[in-house]
């Protein structure tokens, strides 16, 4: 079964869009992340219920027109977000 990725719960993050960049404060680590697209879009798409990687790609394509997302690259991005605590697996 493919892993399900969920965004960290809303109360765990402070998300402030600045311009093309978004500032995200991760409460559990006290670390600020300055991120560009598609990270905010990924977090919104995953939501608290979560998606598998293929489902996420489909959702990003539908909602944000990111049709060229490649699975390996997006998977690597997700792993970084998991390491940072912004996304959880299982």
């Amino acid at each position, binding site marked *: 079964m493919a892993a399900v990725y969920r965004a960290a719960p809303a109360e765990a993050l402070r998300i402030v869009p*600045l311009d*093309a*960049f978004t*500032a995200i*404060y991760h409460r559990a680590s*006290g670390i*600020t992340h*300055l991120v560009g697209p598609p990270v905010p879009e990924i977090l919104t798409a995953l939501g608290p219920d979560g998606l598998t990687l293929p489902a996420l790609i489909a959702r990003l394509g539908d909602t944000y027109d990111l049709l060229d997302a490649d699975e390996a690259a997006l998977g690597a991005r997700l792993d970084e977000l998991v390491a940072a605590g912004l996304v959880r697996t299982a």
Partner: protein
Amino acid sequence: MKHVFSVRIGPVGFRVGSDWRAPIRQLAALYAGYPQPEDGVPDFTVRLFAQRPWRRVIRPAVMIGGDFMIPDAAPLPLAQGLLAAEMAMNLQMALGQRRYLLLHASAVERDGRVLLMTGESGSGKSTLAALLSQRGWRLMGDEFALIDPVTGLAHAFPRLVSLKNAAIAVAEAAMPQARFGPLLEGTPKGAIRHLVPDAAAVAAMDMPGKPALLLFPRFGFAPDIRDVAPGEVFMRLTQASTNYVAMGERGFDALTRLVLSIPAQAIDYPDTKHALAQVEALWEAL
């Protein structure tokens, strides 16, 4: 300690203890007219001490200590004791300040609104702040701007303005009536001379102001002005803040709010005349 000096600079109280009389006497003269720490309890303690008892008299070298210290800080000769005190006070702020988000920036105020200028050493932010204080602006500080995370207001921290190298002559010429400290030659940062903020700056130092404009000055380039986008401002200010990380979520709140509420421009200038004209023009256009 043997010799003691206490002072309040803006909202921050200091106590400086010294093994020698000279630095304390200089501080007392230069900070004459400043108030005492609130309730008699300073926020920070600074110590100027001899590493060994005999080093008080033989080749006296001033070690810097206090509530917050960096290990292995090199001592300064006693002739630079005033600089040691100023560095130690800055160090307490840089390492220990947790009430305000600290931006490495100069700040001047007009009509209750604050102009912040941030940049590397040599960008001219101290000199510009000092010169603007001669032209109808109130000097709030040349080194640290204090942003209150609760109100978003900038608080003044008008310590002695630290003029370095070429800036010394520029300020002396522009402000013949101002009070200066002794000329300190051969410091780790070259020649340094401290300028005493004018009486108006000291009298109004408890009055915070609303940030209105942020500039990134750069000295030694052809005149140029460009907008800086919020994302870049945010990144540059996290680097220009000594306590952003330590402030945690309050730092995040203060900084995102500041970045989203005021315009930011980078200004390049070949000389202070250009810079002052650029600043006035940008301020008028707000």
